[in-house]
């Protein structure tokens, strides 16, 4: 269990980057995860600040989802540690995840889906009503509260998933490519919506994406990961002011420079990931022909 301890006190020892600043919300040290012989992620050490919108980009298969699943407590690290700073005596859950793809329950109405986390921790009915009502309103779903998911579009389903995570009022929000399955227009709308909702409380967010644009639109800082095994390739701050308007942002010269900068680093890794895939395919072919 050493991999997912939540500590209240600042840990002893280890480098404390800026001791006068607030404790990091998430402190990851030497995190490693292997599936059998295969190393998915390796030597990841990062501090994520409280209230930071932290983006992770990397080539597909680089272990970003694995990292997020470890943070979510759905997977155990092979070694290393994660410390999540929770407030003493707080009833807030540590984290809530917005999953990639369809994750809202088909057998529950929009309302019951959004209320799921609160109900699982036995929140009082009044609290459930207030919070679910609030986030359904913020995501434009109030009218659809009694609908079942099969009556909704893909974008609306993902809104429900976001409402569910926010309504649960966690310390940290984890988002695993929540918009990857949406068309460009819907994606833009949901990104803007997400920023507006996030602006209310500025919770710590860890957000995975494969889109460099999305990383720059949303993030305070972007971690670029290497091809498998996933390591930290670079950490890029996004010094763009908030609140952000995504359309306006695209006109800003800094925006283009940032994209180019991040993409140049990422491109090598995507290239490397592709070569690895080719090698594997060839290896497989060779193995087969030998049989």
């Amino acid at each position, binding site marked *: 269990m050493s991999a997912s301890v939540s500590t209240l006190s600042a840990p002893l020892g280890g480098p404390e980057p800026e001791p006068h600043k607030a404790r990091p919300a998430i402190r990851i040290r030497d995190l490693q995860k292997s599936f059998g012989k295969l190393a998915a992620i390796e030597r990841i050490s990062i501090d994520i600040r409280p209230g930071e919108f932290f983006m992770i980009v990397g080539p597909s298969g680089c272990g970003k989802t694995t990292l997020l699943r470890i943070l*979510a*407590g*759905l997977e155990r690290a092979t070694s290393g540690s994660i410390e999540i700073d929770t407030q003493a005596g707080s009833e807030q*859950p540590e*984290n*809530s*995840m917005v*999953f990639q*793809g*369809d*994750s809202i*329950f*088909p*057998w*529950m109405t929009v309302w019951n889906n959004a209320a*799921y*986390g609160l109900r*699982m*921790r036995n929140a009082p009915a009044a609290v459930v009503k207030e919070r679910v009502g609030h986030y359904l309103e913020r995501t434009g779903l109030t009218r659809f509260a009694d609908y*079942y*998911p*099969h009556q909704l579009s893909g974008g609306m389903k993902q809104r429900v998933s976001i409402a*569910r995570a926010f309504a*649960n009022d966690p310390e940290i929000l984890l988002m695993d490519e929540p918009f990857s399955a949406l068309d460009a227009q819907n994606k833009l709308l949901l990104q803007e919506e997400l920023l507006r909702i996030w602006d209310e409380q500025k919770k710590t967010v860890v957000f995975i994406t494969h889109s460099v644009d999305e990383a720059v639109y949303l993030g305070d800082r972007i971690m670029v990961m290497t091809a498998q095994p996933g390591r930290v390739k670079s950490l890029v701050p996004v010094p763009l002011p908030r609140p952000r308007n995504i359309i306006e942002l695209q006109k800003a010269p800094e925006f283009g420079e940032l994209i180019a900068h991040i993409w140049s680093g990422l491109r090598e890794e995507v290239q490397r990931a592709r070569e690895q895939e080719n090698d594997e395919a060839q290896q497989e072919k060779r193995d087969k022909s030998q049989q």
Partner: protein
Amino acid sequence: MSTQTIVGSPEQSFALSMRARERILGIASPIVLLAVWEGAARIGLIDTRFFPAPSSIFAVLIDMLRSGELISNTLVSLRRLALGTLIGGLPALVLGIAMGLNRWVRAIFDPLVAATYPIPKSAILPLALLIFGLGEGSKIFMVAIGVFFPVAINATTGVLEINRIYLDVGRNYKANRWKTFWTIALPGALPVIMTGFKLGIGIGLILIAIAEMIGAKSGLGYMIWTAWETFSVEQMYVGLFMIAIIGFVITVLLNELERLIIPWKRG
């Protein structure tokens, strides 16, 4: 969601007339059959000792309704069917879902279920009579055993087929075991479980008829059996007719129930 129906007025009116035609044929075919049967029996084309005219079967049915014999036997069979379904179905539901959720439970019970499932349930009747005697117990047990297997097997399959992501959501949102059962496993597997119940009750109906033919003093199976002994073929047909009606009504009711408790299922 993947299929699209093109709804235009010419196609629609065509579809409606097709449906109307189907319905008319559906009502007409049994009527025509009965009429042919009646005619054939009257002119002596078929042996009325085995195939009595529908009109004479109907007359016997009316008599049996008047005497209360038909209704009391039907109620007795229905009661056994209902109790057997509950006694067999509920443990099967719990065990099946537990097997779906927990690999250890599955490892323990899967071989047992797999080994006992192929035994023809009717072959267990002598054993059931030995253990439970000639009373209600053996009849209810036979139905229960018939309902148990399809429900248990379908509940396991239903849970195993639930998309993993829903269980991840449950874990991430800290659903405990009990809540995981109620909010994810049961509703997620419910459509498949309903199919299991439909199959199980169908088997239960077969088994109750068999069980009542041997060592019973009441029920539709008993009624059919005594009809054979007294060679009153009409009464036999009345019994068969009642069993068919029960099967049909149960199917209709279960389909309605399904629509009611699975409102998220399309169509």
